[in-house]
Every structure is written in C-alpha cells, then in structure tokens.
C-alpha cells in the first residue's frame, strides 16, 4: 500500500512536471522529460505482479488523458515497455545506476517506437520520420538523464526484501 502511494505520488508529480513546468520554461525547444516512462521501467524492474502491468497501463492512460493523444496509445507503449523490461530483468541483472540509465534510454526509445508503430498502423501518424526519430533520441536522452533522481524518489516503493538485499 505504501509502495503504491509512493509510486502514485511520484507519478502524479512527474505527470504535472512534464506537462506543465517544463513547457513553461524558456528553453526554446521544450524537450519534456518523460518521467512516467522511468516509473514504468521501475515497475518492470521491481513489480513483477499483475498489479505492475496494470500500473504501467494506468501510467500510459494518464499520459493519454493529459497529453491529448487518443486514449490507449501511450497505454499501449507503457505496457510494451513494462513487458520488455520485465523480460529483460528476468535474464539480466539490472541493479546499478548505469545499467538502469541505459535501460531507461532504451525503454524510452521502445515506447516511442511502439507508439509510432501503432499510430502508423491505424493511419493516424502523418509526420516525417527523420525529425521524429531525432526527437525520440532527444527525449530518450532526457529520460535517461532524469532516471537516477526518479529512481531515488521511488526507492521507498521497493519491496523490503529488495531493500535488504542491497
């Protein structure tokens, strides 16, 4: 329960930050950090339950709701990310900061590609692929950069046995 509250709070805070705060800052290109994908990676690493998958879906659904995209798009991307991270950490030991940062970078790319693939499949994507991919890489880099502090905030949501194992 405590873990769900921590994740919920961080998700709400991240959602607000990535949808409001960063867009109001005068940084010119407004690259918005995808805090939710970091949380989704956290769920994939530490929540190997049906609730974890549901959490990823809810994160994506929330993102759809506030970002104005069609409902289900980001939800699909998040569930894909969750699933891939879950499958990855079943085979690879991912616990140090660097490997998590790399995982977040890859996860962000995977999520973007999943979203683009579904959009293209349903015929709703009419942008150019070149700029889109450079944007994907930029956003993935930003997500990777913010991953360590987000993981630090989420440390309270780790299972007791995981915390003891450290």
């Amino acid at each position, binding site marked *: 329960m405590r873990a769900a509250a921590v994740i919920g709070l961080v998700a*709400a805070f991240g*959602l*607000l*930050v990535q*949808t*409001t*705060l*960063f*867009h*109001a*800052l*005068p940084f010119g290109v407004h690259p918005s950090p995808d805090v939710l994908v970091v949380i989704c990676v956290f769920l994939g690493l530490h929540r*190997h*339950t*049906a609730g*974890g*998958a*549901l959490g*990823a*879906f809810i994160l*994506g*659904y*929330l993102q*759809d*709701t*506030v970002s104005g995209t*069609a*409902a*289900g*798009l980001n*939800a*699909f991307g998040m*569930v*894909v990310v*969750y*699933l891939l991270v*879950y499958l990855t950490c079943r085979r690879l030991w991912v616990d140090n900061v660097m490997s998590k940062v790399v995982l977040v970078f890859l996860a962000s790319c995977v999520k973007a590609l999943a979203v683009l693939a*579904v959009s293209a499949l*349903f015929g*709703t994507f009419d942008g150019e692929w070149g700029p889109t991919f450079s944007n994907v890489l930029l956003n993935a880099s930003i997500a990777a950069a913010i991953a360590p502090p987000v993981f630090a905030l989420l440390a309270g949501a780790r299972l007791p046995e995981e915390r003891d194992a450290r």
Partner: protein
Amino acid sequence: MEFVRRNRILLTSGVLLLVSLLLFSVSTRSPAYRDPIGHLVLDALAPFQVVFSWIGRSVGRVWTGYVDLVDARRDNQRMHERVATLESELLRLGELERENARLAELLSFRARFEGTVYGARVIAREPGPLAMTLTIDRGERDHVHRGMAVLAPQGVVGQIAEASHTAARVVLLTDHNSGIDAIVQRSRARGIVQGGTDGSCYMNYLNRDADVVVGDRVLTSGLDGIFPKGVMIGEVVDVSRRHRGLLQAAVVRPSVALDRLEEVLVVDATAQVADPPA
C-alpha cells in the same frame, strides 16, 4: 491454472495491450467517443496544473529576466565600444573637414599670387621669449631659401631664416629679430613692423605726425624686397606717442593666429599679389 499463475504477468500484459489497442481504435475511429475517466482525471489534475504552470512561468520569467539582463549588459558594452569608435571617427572626420577647409582657403589665397609660391606644413614650433620661430617641411630641395616670405591666408607669418635640405625655420613676425616694411592702409603712413620680446608686435619708426589710429589695418609695403605688396600684417590696437622725439609707435595685433598655424605659403621675392587692397 498453474499455467495462468506462472504466466500471469505475460497474460495480464497481453490483455492490457489488447485493451489499449481496442481503446485506441475506438477513440480514433469514433469521433463521438468521450472518455469519462479521462475527464475525471483532467478535472482532478487541473488545479495542480494551474499551480505548476504558474511556478513554471515564474521560473521562466526569472530566467528570461536574467538572460535579458545579461543581453542588455552585453549590448550596453557593445554600444559603448561603438560610441567610442564613432566618436573617434567623428573626430577624425571633423579634423579632415577642418584641414580641407584650411587647404581650400590656402589654395584660394595662393591663386591670388603671381609668381613662385610653395605650400608647406608646419612641423614644429619653438615659441619662447627670445625666439618666436616655427619649422616647415620644405627646404632647399623644394627651392625654399633663406629670406623668402612666409604667408597664411589671413596675412603675414614671417620669413625663412634658415633652410636645410628638407626643412626650413621661419622667424615669425612677432620675433624681435623680425622687421617688415609696412604701411597703414588708410593713411599710407609708413613704418617697420617688428616683434617685441614679449610676443607682441609693434609698428615702429612712424613719423610723429603720421595719421595712425586704433583699428587701422597694417599691410606690407613691398619695399623690403621680401614680402609682396599689400599683404595684411595686422590691426593697430594701441598708439603710443612720447612727449618728445620725432617718432611714434603703434601696437599691432597680427592678423594670423600664429600659435595655431598648420599650413603656410612660402613666397619668393618675385611674387606679387594680383589684386592688392587699396
């Protein structure tokens, strides 16, 4: 059942992926589709979004203000440098304009002469109680010789006292060694204009009954064989008559600002003013 328990995450994820695609399909294909949960979430987040947006804008304003301040400072510095450059340029142009005016005046003055006339620049001056001289950049190489008259558009400057190969020294009319045969323009009274030891200039050897008053213009007489006739020397500013003696003297203020001279004309003895003043 065991299969479901072991693969619950994969199965849940698969179901959620299908739900997502279904949701996406419905929301994109049905324009009338409204997401009630989404609206609830939006309503719940709206107040917080207002606060976060306000924070973001405030931080943005502070940041923009700081950047503007830095830009303003840089602009200010650039403007200062630009102003300094332009002022320097203005000074240079003003100087060129003044030089141009002086040279034009000198040229027009030169046109008044018939005979050999050389233009020269003043390159040094040695004003002192015993020697009022200046140096010009013309010498014997340029056919400038001792004894030649030196003039400016306003009048007499002095005469060449010494000439080297490339330069010449000019004794000013205010030097006590200088002597110029002169006449008072109005009364034609004749005398010798000489320098004093105090930098002033006197018209000596005037007859006691000669008609000389303050304001009279003094011109060269041309009788000394050095200065052409009819060139302005100066203006009488004082007349002194002693109680006794046959002569009187007048204090003459030179028409040329000798301390600010930059260009002069060197005139040989054969040169004449084409239209001397009456």
